[in-house]
């Protein structure tokens, strides 16, 4: 569950990086105070 996969994808000459996790907790920003 703590594993994060990092993948670079190129489309139309632009490369962006995707990071993927199995769960949101600890990965996504904590919005508790919003």
């Amino acid at each position, binding site marked *: 569950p703590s594993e994060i*996969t990092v*993948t670079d*994808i190129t*489309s*139309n000459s*632009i490369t*962006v*990086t*995707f*990071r*993927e*996790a*199995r*769960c*949101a907790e600890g*990965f*996504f*920003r904590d*919005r508790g105070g*919003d």
Partner: protein
Amino acid sequence: GGGETGSEIELVFRAHPLLVEKDGYSQTRYVKTTANATVDHLSKYLALRIALEEEALRGGTEGVSLEDVSEKQYTIYICSGGAGGQYTTLNGSLTLELVNEKYWKVSKPLELYYAPTKEQ
């Protein structure tokens, strides 16, 4: 607003509930990327990830050829609300920042759906 932190976008990515048969493979994906990523980038990313995961499930050792991966394999949708749970197809050239501003407009991770592209 939206799922943005600075220039980073947070996404919750799921199989389309109506267009994709439920199986053990359709897990929810929690993804982060930059706001300038387009829907085409996301679609290509998904095609690559699914191809790699299917290869791993088959016990394959040859890997995946990038020539077999295309942004055309999957269509990306966003839930547009309504009583019937309507879904809107997202144009491939839209950046995720624009999707956030134009379709999502709430301060939480962007929720998107995918399904295999229907043959014309």
